[in-house]
């Protein structure tokens, strides 16, 4: 089943490449593929929640082909647990939204949808790979579609941004490869499950170095200050659907890697350096928030807010050090929840920003105003996304931020107090942005603008519903995360220093 989920979009892309010609056909086909993909991912999620739900620590739906590359003991090994299943679902969800958000693309339609589907395969593969080399292959595979999507269909300094994104990620993954090889020659395996909690072992490099190599690669992706600079450029110049994917799922690859690889493999080192993570997190949170306030480009604003919000993920992870000899799962669950909710919320925000830009032909906030009168549906969705983003109770954003703060406050009281302050700033820039763009006097030059069409409303509705459902009943996702994080919490508990 997992192989089908991973390779369905790729197969769809090949069919677009080889068989389809007409733009309309291609759009419909891509939509069909992603809808089926979403159905499969949802089915996997439901099966996971019901059947094998209680077997903590086990990987489910495992698929292994041991003899893929026997010389290096590299296996084709897929499987999911509570940590990855919601992320697979998120990928499928946003993958579908991305296709619907691309309905207006006119330039080189065939290649565009092909790359979009290839991207989905790569990201899904990252979340379900249980072999470190396979993980790395999917991790790098994601670069090519992103490079093409940004540099061909983007705007502004698109080629510069695409290259910057690529070089940053490549440098990060270069370090990861060294870490992976060091682990392999110390432990003799690329199997991620077997590698969990091995940091007491003898390594050919110091364990702290390997931890830093892995963490660095994932920090570039998350992104963490000071290696975040690729993100605003890439987001600003990417086409709407790609921004949705980038903010929605690609950043989560970084957070996922940090939790499963950096913390899961080296729980002791993670605790030792938790203060570094906490420091980086709070700088990301505050710096991201402060810089966001100054932005006048709607898309750049949302992009910078992502840096701040992904800082919460890192903050949640920094709670692994525990307090008084007890490691709580709240902080890590909060980090994982923050990944899921940020994916839906910011995905929706980028979607709406793209729609507004398509209609109003500007992203410059001072030029806008009173748009709510002309596009009420978009305005309502924007309001929902904005409020969720600032963490209003009843939306999913509130749940995840609350969990992060609950988890980290006992561990890093002062730092958390500082980070909580960013909530105020967030509320400020979000409300100010909405007020300046959607409210105020209705402007004459926007009088002819229409609201969202049905095709445009589909992804909006799906994401708004997800935000509300998770906001009201967070356990639907958080239970799964908690269960998936249980083995990591246990190993953290074992190595904790009282």
């Amino acid at each position, binding site marked *: 089943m997992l192989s089908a989920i991973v390779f369905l979009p790729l197969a769809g892309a090949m069919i677009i490449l080889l068989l389809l010609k007409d733009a309309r056909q291609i759009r419909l086909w891509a939509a069909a593929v992603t809808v089926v993909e979403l159905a499969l991912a949802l089915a996997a999620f439901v099966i996971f929640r019901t059947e094998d739900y209680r077997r903590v620590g086990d990987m489910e739906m495992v698929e292994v082909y041991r003899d893929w590359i026997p*010389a290096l003991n590299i296996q084709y090994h897929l499987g999911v647990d509570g940590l990855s299943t919601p992320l697979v679902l998120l990928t499928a969800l946003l993958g579908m939204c991305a296709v619907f958000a691309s309905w207006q693309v006119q330039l080189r339609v065939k290649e565009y949808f092909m790359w979009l589907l290839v991207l989905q395969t790569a990201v899904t593969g990252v979340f379900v790979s249980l072999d470190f080399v396979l993980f790395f292959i999917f991790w790098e595979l994601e670069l090519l579609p992103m490079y093409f999507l940004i540099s061909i269909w983007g705007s502004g300094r698109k080629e510069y941004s695409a290259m910057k994104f690529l070089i940053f990620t490549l440098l990060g993954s*270069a370090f990861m490869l060294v870490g992976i090889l060091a682990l392999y020659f110390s432990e003799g395996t690329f199997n991620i499950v077997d590698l969990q909690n091995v940091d007491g072992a003898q390594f050919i490099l110091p364990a702290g170095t390997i931890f830093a190599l892995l963490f660095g690669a994932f920090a570039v992706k998350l992104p963490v200050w000071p290696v975040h600079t690729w993100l605003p450029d890439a987001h600003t110049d990417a086409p709407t659907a790609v921004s949705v994917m980038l903010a929605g799922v690609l950043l989560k690859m970084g957070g996922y890697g940090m939790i499963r690889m950096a913390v899961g493999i080296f729980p002791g080192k993670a605790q030792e350096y938790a203060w570094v993570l906490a420091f980086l997190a709070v700088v990301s949170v505050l710096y991201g928030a402060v810089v966001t306030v100054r932005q006048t480009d709607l898309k750049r604003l949302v992009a910078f807010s992502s840096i701040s919000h992904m800082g919460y993920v890192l903050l949640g992870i920094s709670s692994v050090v525990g307090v008084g000899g007890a490691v709580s799962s709240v902080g890590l669950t909060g980090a994982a929840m923050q990944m899921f909710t940020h994916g839906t919320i910011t995905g929706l925000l980028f979607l709406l920003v793209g729609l507004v830009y398509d209609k109003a032909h500007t992203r410059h906030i001072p030029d806008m105003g009173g748009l709510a009168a002309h596009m009420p549906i978009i305005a309502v969705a924007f309001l929902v996304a904005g409020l969720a983003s600032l963490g209003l109770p009843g939306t999913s954003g509130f749940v995840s931020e609350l969990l992060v703060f609950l988890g980290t406050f006992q561990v890093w009281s002062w730092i958390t107090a500082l980070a909580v302050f960013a909530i105020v700033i967030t509320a400020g820039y979000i409300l100010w942005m909405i007020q300046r763009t959607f409210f105020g006097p209705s402007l004459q030059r926007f009088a002819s603008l229409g609201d969202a069409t049905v095709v445009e409303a589909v992804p909006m509705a799906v994401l708004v519903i997800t935000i509300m459902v998770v906001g009201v009943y967070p356990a639907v996702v958080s239970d799964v995360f908690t269960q998936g994080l249980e083995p990591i919490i246990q190993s953290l508990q074992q190595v904790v220093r009282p």
Partner: protein
Amino acid sequence: MTIHDVYLLSPELSLASLGIVVIILDMVLRRKGVLAAVSVVGLLVPLAFSIALWGNLSGEADGQMVGIFNTLVVDKFSLFFKFLIMGILALVVMSSVEYVSRIRQFQGEYYGLMLFSASGMMLLAATTDLVSIYIALELTALPLAALAAFLRDSRSTEAGIKFLLLSAMSSAVLLYGMTLVYGFTGTTQLPGIFERLGTSLDATVPFGSHALFLGVVMIVAGFGFKIAAVPFQMWVPDVYEGAPTPITAYLSVASKAAGFAAILRVFHMAFGEISLDWATLFAVLAAVSMTVGNLVAISQNNIKRMLAYSTIAHAGFLMVGVAAIAARVPAGETTTGPSGGLFYLVAYAVTNLAAFFAIIAISSRTGSDMISSFAGIGRQAPLLAVILAFSMISLLGIPPTAGFMGKLYMFSAAMKSDLAWLVVVSVLNSAVSAYYYLRVIRVMYMQDPDNAEKVSVAFAPRVALYITGLSILALGLFPGPMIKAAERAVEILFL
């Protein structure tokens, strides 16, 4: 020389004879198109001999057959290179068909010289004696010098002369190094050198002896020229740019493979005793080579020059495999450096050939080797563009390509040999190289073409293009069998 010796030498002999046959046919035939066909089909003879030899090997207890006064050895290592070089040769001949048909004169000589050179390369991988290594090197290099000058315009002539002069100079250095080694050990046979070294090394001096030190460094310099490593790379850009493009492809791949075979053979068989010292030497050369190659490649505007510098960088990556032979592997295990090098060579060969074949086809239409002239090829010739893009991605080392698997395997060998710093340098270099490799892709797909003319490719070059393009993907997805072949080929080095 017995009949058995002739049999052992049969692949090289039949290949050289084929060259003579092609030249004679050129004199009697009108239709020159037949020459390429004869060259490719005629390769079946040395191929058949090689397969027969491979079959005979299984009967030998020590996995090798030695002939001609212990100078020639047939083992899986040399046969691996025979197959590789014949494969490269066949592909390059196929891709040359259209290119050569525009040269009015000497078409037979073109193919003939290529075949002579290939027989030298095959011999180079199969000799265990310093003198015959030298002869094989010259047999490889002289035809290549003539081929580089084949277009007979000013650039091509310059390329030929440059290659000839610098090749002669590096041969002189190599010979001097060999003389020193001979003077120190009293033999030119590699196994003999190994035995003498075992008894006469002084532990307080690097390499055990000053004379030996000088000799080894000079041999490294000589071979460094052949595989285009820094600091012996000066000839590469000019020769690559001026030579006919199929010859550039041949030079960048086959010549390098043969040089690498000789390095592995010499250093593994003769200088195993002092491996720790020369591992450091090669590690430093590797790091410098890839860094210089990559940094200079960034500023190139001519695609052949860019690939020339990329070749220098890849020579660096290859030497990582040589350096990884260092004895510091965990006890009870053998290094994967040599097999990593062999796999990398195959991956690099198919990738570089695919790139050059696509360039031959494209620039024969646009009439220019400038990267900017590739604008819009993505629409004019979708398939060519895809293959060229794919080969760039493979050179860069992003999955799912042969280049990625080659690097993964090679770096893991270096990691195993405790060369973590070299792995870090290598992966950072790979990341930097993204800038210039992707530039080609960017120009092809993101800039508009000058004219909407479609590019078409003749049958034989197209087949060569497909074979190499598919091999990139196949080796990237299923490298298992080729890794296994490489491992079996290098087993003999560890006996």
